[in-house]
């Protein structure tokens, strides 16, 4: 029965975060708009040659996702800090990992929605043809998003409570995401081409392993990190 209570807590936190986001709207719209703006700026910086743009599309989309995503993670803890809600949250009985899982779930939905917009914008703006292997491509994006959200949520739980949080989160997060960036961009590029060298499979395994390793590591470490 305990796991049912825990799952109820996880859902409650995710639902609460998403309801707040939905009602304020400014948050999601702002983050998604930033992602698209970064894409447009990259297009201007790299264009106007069509072939060069198509070549750079994958990198541009992932960079826009990383930069806009960083804003989402600090936000999700800001909600707790602004109204002094973190203390009651920590005072509830039940294991602390449920807090992390709830935040993770909420951020996953938030960032997935944002990525959908950024990818759609990237396809249009950079003139990318959708390949026949698109379901695999969606899988690659999903694996990349999970890696981003797991570490982003974990580091934001600290950076949101430190001095200079706007600087600290990217400093901690971006170097950690190098394997995600390389894996997601290379696999996506391979799938957009014909994947003649069959390299996408290896990258997908790397992404999956990365997600699994850090999912476990952050769940273990979160309990030590969340307390004040």
């Amino acid at each position: 029965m305990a796991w049912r209570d825990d799952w109820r807590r996880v859902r409650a936190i995710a639902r609460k975060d998403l309801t707040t986001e939905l009602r304020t709207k400014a948050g999601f719209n702002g983050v998604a708009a930033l992602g698209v703006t970064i894409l447009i700026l990259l297009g201007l910086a790299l264009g106007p040659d069509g072939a060069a743009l198509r070549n750079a599309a994958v990198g541009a989309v992932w960079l826009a996702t990383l930069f806009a995503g960083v804003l989402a993670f600090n936000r999700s803890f800001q909600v707790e800090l602004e109204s002094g809600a973190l203390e009651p949250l920590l005072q509830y009985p039940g294991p602390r990992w449920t807090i992390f899982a709830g935040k993770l779930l909420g951020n996953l939905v938030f960032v997935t929605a944002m990525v959908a917009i950024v990818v759609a914008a990237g396809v249009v703006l950079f003139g990318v043809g959708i390949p026949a292997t698109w379901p695999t491509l969606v899988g690659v994006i999903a694996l990349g998003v999970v890696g981003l959200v797991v570490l982003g949520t974990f580091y934001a739980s600290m950076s949101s409570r430190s001095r200079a949080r706007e600087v600290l989160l990217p400093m901690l997060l971006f170097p950690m995401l190098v394997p995600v960036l390389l894996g997601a961009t290379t696999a996506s590029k391979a799938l957009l081409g014909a994947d003649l060298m069959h390299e996408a499979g290896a990258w997908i395994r790397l992404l999956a392993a990365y997600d699994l390793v850090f999912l476990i590591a952050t769940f273990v470490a979160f309990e030590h990190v969340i307390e004040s």
Partner: protein
Amino acid sequence: MSNGQSDRAIDVSGLGKRFGARWVLRGTTLAVRPGEVVGLMGQNGSGKSTILRIVATLLKPNAGTAQVNGLNVVRDATAVRAQVGYLAHTPGLYDDLTARENLKFAADMLGMPATVVDASLERVGLARVAHERVRGFSAGMERRLALARLFLRTPTVLLLDEPYSNLDAAGVELINSLIGGIVRTGGAALVALHELAPARGLIDRTLTLVEGRIDAARPNLVGAAAGVA
């Protein structure tokens, strides 16, 4: 007495806590027995809130120990949290959720059935505005809603931080009925106060904090008042 039953609901011994270089608690020792309501007096910054937050497992002490029903607040934090009801100085509500959603969230986190939510709203007199967002609430309404969270279940130890501020006479009555209800079932309460008046008749004794220590020389205000009367 590391776990199980104890003759002390709250047992704080030699507690030290600092924030940066500033020492807020300097070896505080106090105890509250089951069925007892103790008022914690002292000026602003004397460390009242810090003691409550340590006992509520929200802060870790730099020195000394604190126990709730024989459970150590650092080692057995999860078990302590299940027994303690804590009302913070700030309401800690989510502004963009309605009153009812805020309570439903608390019920989910506490593992209580959803049915207690409406009863609790009724009890604090907020049933009428249950579907309004907290953002539009007055300070007094926010405090009532924060209080409603404590009515969701029956803790054995209540920790209240300045519960009477921003409350009208009816609100004061609510707090007192909450404390009374807990004490009748053998629970205990530690209440941080800056004036005794609203809690008179309910408080068994008072302790006064001066510079992070219990001042032994200060008279028990409840006893003193009784003596005069």
